[in-house]
């Protein structure tokens, strides 16, 4: 238990745990309404085509079919980011990937709906498919999005902080490399599901497995042309999210429209294959990284270029692109930094945010590059990192405001625990240790759509019977956010967390929270809830103080009691509430939170800022079979700078889950499409999209580093994403330690390890990875003078800096 706290920092059962172990939790597909119809979507069988004709009459004629719709019923475009509203609920003019929905059927049974799909006539005029980043760059036409300005280039960005040329000129050693991070997907256990109910008085209710009910709410109102006040979105407990349920989805709109047309509730539950088509997962990314260092290993400059395979729609892609360049600077000091990033449209399921959003890819390159630098300069990789950690309470060269930073302690902890000093570089051949570090946001500094309102809000209601209810728009996706609300309220009111009722993720009942993404919930709802609970407590305090004629400071709240120690008075919490309610009327308080203003003022400064940054350092020990290339993780040591744990066991669960998912990405998880076969997804199944079973998972020793951050509630920072990031580069670094070759690709598959070993055996560079970076006409960078050089966060005026290289 943390000092001064009663609840915060303890190991506590999550408030929804009993429901989850007894099967009582109601997920979206468990919602059953009377007269409910079932919806199925007809999805495009062609990767890129113009729609010539859709004839629904065959489907409508089938037994059990009640309604069938196509794109023209919902002509309004939408998208999660206002800058790329390029989606339609059902395709209108063209289809952009295999799996793009074109029609929806509602029928009395799911089977009837499925059979009806085959009776829909869909005439398509195939177009050339764009299957790769390189092809997208070199094939401006046909454009996947005819309105896109630059052919099939969705976004190009270029930022320069300081003088990168000077940094490289002054360096003693430059590492340059190409890396590829394969695309992968969330694979939440729960398939997306939604149920819509329309009432003739014009009110629409949607239950959906979404991480972002607020954004779904906005999109439903917009696309269905309904007043937002008439639309209610209830996010059911998510059976896992990981970022895969943060976009508004076609199926959510389709069931709403069908409910409105039929006057009956409509349900959809996607098949696993369809979930692969929803995707929005990790962008496959090609990375060119250059890092310049002094002889002693001090970084003088870094230049990253990334090319993201975006898939067919924008989704969060503009943000993803910026994120591949945002967080390189927050772990180690990087005085001069340049980033060029590009996202391409291809005819594949759209990519978006997955755990770590845009940052695991460059982190993979960066942490391998540091390993190479350490080897080249004969410095221990741990020391190389330790000697240049970004200082606490500082501004990075790209204007990210760092509060607490426990990275040094993280590194020292795992170095000690793993026996790194005695064992790194000294294990028998075939065994290796790899170290990597990372950092992640505790929520984004800016909302997805521009507004000045709070990012998170909570209401606390006290009942005269002593009951306490907290209302908040946040969504529990398994990470335990409902419990965080209860623990915070319990801490502030001095009561048992299990007597608190938590009402979340219901746009009719709960104040807005932007959603469960970017690791924002603990920090942002934590602040809002703490504020609301503290206000409720003060209301009780003042009521009791008045009634008992004591000063407020004499009153304490603990153990479900309200006490005035000096007078020997002890009231049950309920009694105190009743007294206060008699004085003040019903006690309902609210709190809200908006992150501090960002330090950067240049275009692009909106991606990267966060109230606080978490830090992780991980070491993995692996065994590499040199005859087959199989890499087996033996053990992971992971230290995570959490600031302050709210609930220790939940935090450890997040660390272990992140390590697990990171190992999966590192070793086997990958979305694969067959470029020569119309871009079909090669393996849209849980059997063939490989994820770790309990036999592949290794033991993890977790260390929580608690250095409270001034910007976190009780000092808390994020944990849900950061500890994933070190795993892929740690695995690659460990493979190098084990067998002396580099695999500069994720996943590190057996065939790639063998390719690297073969290259080494043939006297070539002992590596396997991408060989070239496609040519891109990068824009003139936005130049920003770093804070250390006297910059004010604004871009330099064009022409005031030097010419672009």
């Amino acid at each position, binding site marked *: 238990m943390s000092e001064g706290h009663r609840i915060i920092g303890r190991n506590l*059962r*999550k408030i*929804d*745990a*009993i*429901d*989850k*172990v*007894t*099967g*009582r*939790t*109601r*997920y979206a*597909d*468990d919602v*059953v309404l009377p007269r409910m119809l079932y919806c199925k979507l007809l999805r495009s069988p062609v990767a890129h085509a113009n729609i010539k004709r859709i004839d629904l009459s065959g489907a409508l004629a089938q037994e059990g079919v009640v309604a069938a719709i196509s794109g023209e019923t919902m002509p309004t475009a939408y998208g999660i980011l206002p800058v790329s509203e390029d989606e339609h609920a059902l395709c209108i003019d063209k289809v952009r990937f295999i799996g793009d929905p074109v029609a929806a059927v509602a029928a009395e049974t799911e089977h009837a709906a499925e059979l009806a799909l085959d009776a829909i006539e869909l005439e398509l005029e195939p177009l050339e498919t764009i299957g790769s980043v390189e092809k997208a760059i070199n094939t401006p036409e046909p454009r996947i999005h005819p309105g896109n300005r630059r052919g099939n280039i969705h976004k190009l960005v270029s930022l320069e902080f300081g003088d990168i040329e000077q940094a490289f000129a002054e360096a003693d050693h430059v590492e340059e490399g190409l890396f590829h991070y394969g695309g992968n997907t*969330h*694979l*939440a*256990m*729960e*398939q997306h599901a939604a149920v819509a109910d329309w009432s003739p008085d014009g009110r629409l209710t949607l239950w959906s497995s979404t991480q972002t009910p607020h954004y779904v709410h906005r999109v439903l109102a917009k696309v269905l042309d309904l007043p937002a006040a008439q639309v209610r979105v209830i996010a059911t*407990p*998510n*059976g*896992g*999210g*990981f970022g895969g349920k943060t976009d508004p989805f076609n199926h959510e709109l389709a069931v709403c429209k069908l409910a409105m047309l039929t006057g009956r509730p409509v349900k959809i539950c996607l*098949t*696993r294959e369809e979930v692969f088509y929803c995707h929005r997962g990790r962008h496959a990314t090609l990375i060119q990284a250059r890092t310049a260092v002094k002889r002693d290993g001090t970084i003088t400059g870094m230049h990253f270029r990334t090319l993201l395979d975006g898939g067919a729609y924008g989704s969060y892609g503009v943000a993803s692109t910026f994120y591949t360049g945002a967080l390189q600077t927050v772990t180690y000091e990087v005085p001069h930094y340049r980033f060029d990033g590009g996202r391409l449209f291809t005819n594949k399921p759209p990519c978006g945010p997955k755990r770590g959003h845009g940052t695991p890819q460059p982190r993979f390159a960066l942490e391998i590059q540091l390993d190479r630098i350490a080897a080249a300069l004969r410095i221990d990789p741990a020391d190389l990192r330790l000697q240049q950690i970004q200082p606490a309470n500082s501004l990075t060269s790209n204007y990210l405001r760092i509060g607490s930073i426990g990275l040094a302690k993280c590194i020292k902890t795992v170095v000690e625990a793993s026996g790194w000093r005695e064992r790194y570089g000294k294990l028998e051949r075939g065994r290796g240790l790899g170290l990597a570090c990372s950092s992640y946001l505790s929520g984004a500094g800016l909302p997805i759509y521009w507004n000045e309102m709070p990012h998170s809000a909570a209401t606390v209601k006290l009942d005269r019977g002593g009951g306490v209810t907290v209302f908040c728009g946040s969504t529990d*996706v*398994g*990470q*335990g956010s409902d419990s965080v609300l209860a623990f915070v309220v319990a801490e502030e009111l001095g009561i048992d967390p299990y007597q608190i009722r938590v009402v979340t993720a219901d746009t009719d009942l709960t104040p807005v929270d932007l959603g469960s993404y970017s690791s924002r919930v603990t920090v942002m709802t934590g602040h809002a809830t703490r504020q609301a609970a503290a206000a409720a407590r003060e209301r009780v305090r003042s009521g009791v103080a008045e009634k008992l004629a004591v000063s407020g400071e004499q009153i304490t709240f603990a153990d479900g009691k309200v006490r005035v120690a000096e007078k020997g008075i002890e009231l049950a919490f309920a009694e105190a509430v009743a007294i206060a309610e008699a004085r003040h009327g019903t006690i309902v308080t609210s709190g809200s939170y908006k992150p501090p203003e960002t330090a950067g003022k240049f275009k692009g400064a909106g991606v990267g800022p966060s109230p606080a940054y978490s830090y992780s350092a991980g070491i993995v020990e692996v065994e590499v079979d040199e005859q087959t290339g199989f890499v087996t993780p033996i053990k992971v040591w992971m230290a995570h700078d959490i600031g302050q744990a709210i609930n220790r*066991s*939940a935090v*450890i*669960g997040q660390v*272990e*889950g*992140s*390590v*697990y*998912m990171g190992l999966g990405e590192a070793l086997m998880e990958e979305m694969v499409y067959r470029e020569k076969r119309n871009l079909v997804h090669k393996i849209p*199944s*849980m*059997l063939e999209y490989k*994820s770790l*079973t*309990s*036999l592949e*998972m290794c*033991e*993890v020793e977790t260390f929580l580093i608690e250095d409270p951050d001034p910007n976190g509630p009780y000092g808390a920072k994020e944990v849900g994403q950061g500890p994933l990031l070190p795993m892929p580069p740690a695995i690659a670094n460990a493979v190098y330690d084990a067998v002396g070759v580099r695999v500069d690709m994720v996943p590190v598959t057996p065939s790639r390890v063998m390719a690297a070993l073969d290259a080494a055996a043939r006297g070539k560079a002992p590596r396997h990875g991408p060989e070239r970076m496609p040519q891109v006409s990068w824009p003139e960078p936005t130049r920003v003078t770093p804070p250390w050089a006297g910059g004010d966060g604004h871009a330099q005026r064009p022409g005031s800096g030097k010419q672009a290289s």
Partner: protein
Amino acid sequence: MLVDKITVNLKINGLATELRVPPQKTLLEALREEAGLTGTKHGCELGECGACTVLINGSPQLSCLVLAAACDGAEVLTIEGLANGPELHPLQSAFAELGAAQCGYCTPGVLLAAAALLVRNPSPTRDEIRQALSGNLCRCTGYLQIWNAVERAAEQLRTR
């Protein structure tokens, strides 16, 4: 082709139940849609994830690949029947206390697979636990808190 429904008499969580189902209805569908027992989850319906695990005559099996019609005379235990009335099974308590359920979606299946293990082997080693649960994917926990919870429950069951 319309096929007649089949009458199936089985015990679900100890309760004698008569189902009238068409042959193609899986046990998973029958439990969720006919018996109202939505605690049994589904993640693929192809036997590739383990979410729909139930006990059929004590044996952990995938309800997505078993016909309800094939369960005549069988005893089926689902997550709703794991607790003894209001008293949680030690596995349920341990899972709740140790954070073994995050999103909770794989949890019913994992619990039933673990329950069968502990009947068969009251003192499983960690490796035996990993083996027994290797047919149940979990995307949240990294399995570690699940293994810990099974170990704790085994210990509690042994000392009861």
